[in-house]
């Protein structure tokens, strides 16, 4: 009963901007971990080719809804801890195109993993990396460690 009540509550009220930001951070971290594991496999550091399809599916799942995690009111003007740039909202159609590239690339990786062809996997993996970079280039603040 409690669970149902909570679910209902979340659909009745918009999520707090801070929670949306935290959620999308976690989603990005999930994608990063899948990419990290995928790298270890494609670089031949570990013999786990049978896991590639699962990592690709995980990446696809993040990509599928990623654009929805940037609603109005969750930009750097409203929330402190976001690394998203204001351009996500001011150049929305370009951002949507970048998210679409992420979706297409992760689908290509899933297709290649299903077929199990090394060359296609490497090519698709490169495409996913490019889609990450392409979006970070324009829509994420630059790191300063």
């Amino acid at each position: 009963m409690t669970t149902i009540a909570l679910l209902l509550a979340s659909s009745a009220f918009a999520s707090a901007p801070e929670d949306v930001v935290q959620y999308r951070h976690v989603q990005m971290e999930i994608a990063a971990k899948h990419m990290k594991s995928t790298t270890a496999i494609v670089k031949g550091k570990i013999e786990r080719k049978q896991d590639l399809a699962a990592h690709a599916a995980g990446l696809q799942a993040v990509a599928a809804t990623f654009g929805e995690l940037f609603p109005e009111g969750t930009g750097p003007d409203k929330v402190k801890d976001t690394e998203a740039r204001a351009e996500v909202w001011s150049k929305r159609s370009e951002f949507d195109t970048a998210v679409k590239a992420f979706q297409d690339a992760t689908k290509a990786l899933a297709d290649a993993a299903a077929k199990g062809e090394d060359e296609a996997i490497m090519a698709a993996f490169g495409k996913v990396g490019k889609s990450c970079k392409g979006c970070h280039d324009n829509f994420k603040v630059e790191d300063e460690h």
Partner: protein
Amino acid sequence: MALAGDPAIGAALAGLGGCAACHTADGGPPWAGGHAVETPRGTFYGSNLTPDPEHGLGAWGFDDFRRAMREGRAPDGHAYWPAFPYTSFTNLTDEDLGHLWAFLQTLEPVARPDQPHEGIPPRWQLQVFRWRAFHEGPEPLDRGAYLGTAVGHCRECHSPRTWIGRIRTRHELEGGHAPFTVAPAIDPEALAGWSADDLDTLFTLGMSPDGDFPGGGMSRIVDEGTAKLSDADRAALIAWLKGG
């Protein structure tokens, strides 16, 4: 006199040097100039490097090119602002300058006039002599240091700068900060947690050890530069970054 250069080698050197990043306007024709480098001492625009006789380097000879790269001077003798990192390029060998020159000759000429620099404070103009106090090369360097300092000039973005914009030489690679460049520290201490293999993954696939794909200027340096290096050169560059 021009040395017999190989345009393919020149293209790889230009990729590692990231030349096109500053010498191409956002969305503009490649190598025709116009990218804005914004600094607190003015906005500098990369120049047209295509062989266009009027607006590019079409009227230049190899000696003009070598002088620009090594001494930071234009054919007419005037000093370039060091937003153009000749203080790093000064250590390029004649041979590599020949390859770069050969590569530049292969570009499509584009008749795009250079955009004048903007907002340089008059007081800063007086400081240019300090800028010009640099050790002119070429200085013999081991392969990794050569790739990282003469070609790649990592320190130009990854080092803190003084108020006039000179690199703080005792703090090279300790990270660039606003209002100049914003780039993480990459000195051996900062990279202590990075294995040589982590760096190789970044330099080939563009992925950092946390699974992130850094964007910004670096992704282009990876795609057009470090990823195209020979394995031996990449290993030398990594060894240099790790402190020898």
